[in-house]
């Protein structure tokens, strides 16, 4: 069934969009990632104009994350205080990111930079996660204890706050910076930023894995909602029909994903997420490395 999208101004298959939304929803529920890093390239591939794809996928992340967050709130696996600190950093980062994005646009190389930042970030994060989870599984096989509360430089910074739910007493500076970085990336890359925030919370802040997912969802919802408003007001690129189709698939998928995630071991989850991140990274890297079938591309007249 073909459907015409009013803002994107293209006609696409409705079931295809439902399927894409559903797939991303399952992943979002399982891993606590918004799935933007997956849905945005998929929408490009279907033929949605990039600006609309980025803005709409951000809006879609709000929906799938909200449904997943509710499931986590019920299980009390959200650290509100940590979430609020991350959020404060995230909102500032989103504003900053929009400035950076507009600057890159003026330089005329925004596509390349977005693509490169995807490849570099996904590559590093995926690789680190893979190594860490393989090590963790090896350790647990040997029967040695996993020491999560490693003391590193993070614990020596001032302005310490007690995060009871996470069992942490650390400075607010690292979570603020993590939030800021994620906010910048969400505005530039059109993603929620969970793929970066989840490992940062585990490895840098030392949060227990069970609260990490719910807490990152909490931050993602508000930052993506803010970014949606920025896109809708400044660029008019949020396509509500596209968003509805994606989120119908997405919210159902998220519920299924959350249940799958709870049944799996944390290390298994991490290894799967790492594999997925590396897969998307590899696909995007190939696009940059292989000779494209069409060397020319069309852009809008204002230099974008």
């Amino acid at each position, binding site marked *: 069934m073909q*459907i015409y999208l009013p*803002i994107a101004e293209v006609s696409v298959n409705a079931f295809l969009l439902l399927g894409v939304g559903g797939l991303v929803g399952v992943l979002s529920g399982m891993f606590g990632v918004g799935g933007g890093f997956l849905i945005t390239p998929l929408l490009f591939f279907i033929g949605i104009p990039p600006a609309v794809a980025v803005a709409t996928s951000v809006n879609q992340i709000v929906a799938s994350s909200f*449904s997943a967050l509710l499931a986590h709130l019920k299980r009390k696996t959200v650290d509100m205080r940590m979430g609020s600190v991350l959020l404060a950093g995230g909102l500032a980062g989103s504003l900053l990111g929009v400035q950076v994005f507009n600057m890159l646009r003026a330089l005329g*190389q925004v596509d*390349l930079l977005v693509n490169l930042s995807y490849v570099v970030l996904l590559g590093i994060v995926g690789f680190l996660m893979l190594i860490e989870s393989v090590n963790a599984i090896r350790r647990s096989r040997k029967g040695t204890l996993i020491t999560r509360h490693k003391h590193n430089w993070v614990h020596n910074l001032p302005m310490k706050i007690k995060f009871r739910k996470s069992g942490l007493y650390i400075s607010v500076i690292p979570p603020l910076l993590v939030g800021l970085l994620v906010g910048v990336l969400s505005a530039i890359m059109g993603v929620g930023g969970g793929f970066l925030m989840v490992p940062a919370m585990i490895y840098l802040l030392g949060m227990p894995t069970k609260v990490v997912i719910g807490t990152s969802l909490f931050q993602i919802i508000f930052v993506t909602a803010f970014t949606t408003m920025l896109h809708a007001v400044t660029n008019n690129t949020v396509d509500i029909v596209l*968003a509805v189709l994606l989120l119908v698939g997405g919210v159902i998928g998220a519920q299924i994903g959350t249940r799958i995630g709870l049944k799996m071991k944390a290390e298994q989850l991490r290894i799967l997420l790492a594999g997925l991140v590396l897969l998307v990274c590899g696909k995007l890297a190939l696009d*940059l490395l292989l000779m494209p079938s069409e060397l*020319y591309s069309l852009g809008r007249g204002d230099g974008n």
Partner: protein
Amino acid sequence: MILRLLILLTLCALPVRAEEVVAGLSQRQISISTNFDGSEILIFGAIKRQQAIDYSTELGVIITVSGPDEALTVRRKEKVGPIWVNVDALGVQSAPTLYAVSTSAPISELVSEDTDLLHRISVRSAIFAGMADQGVDGDAFTEALIRIRTESKRYQMNEGAVELTSDTLFNTSVSLPANLVEGNYAVRFLLLRDKQVISQYETVIFVRKVGMERFLHALAYEQPYLYGLLSLFIAIAAGWGASAVFRYVRN
């Protein structure tokens, strides 16, 4: 005085219109609704004349349909180190979003190059490219633009698609792709003899979004804050709704 004389002379020099195009369309308005999946318009007409048919030269009909013009940038990739990067670009001042040419015979037999340029008949002459930078092959960029848009059926060259009966009646159909842009689409009818345009007629098809498409598009541009909030509201309601439904199903 001299100017007036010149005008008078030119007027006298113009031949009396021997043959004229009278034309019609199957629809004047195309509505883009939610299930819009492209459209096919039938174009037909007749050639009105006062005298007997002139068989000394061949009669040709060309019909062009062109969508609203837009400015765009064409970029070219080149390998820089290990990766493919946009290296140069050509700014195109004006190119139609849609351009379909239908002819009654191969176009090279119907028009001369001058006629083509004068009346902007072929796709190539309908595009106004900007000045290319030093060392940039501007033609390769316009060719690429035409190639990309031809693949997506936005630019069409339907040679021989116009059926001309007894040198008097003609008809053709043009299929418009699903990714139509809203606006006024000009339909031109050109009557040709001896590679020259002897008669011309132009009409318009209105392409408009209707119903929900129109409402949402207008809302997004005129009330962006409200539109943004509506998007978020739908997102959160859907997220919450799904959660509630699943809870209910499980209990």
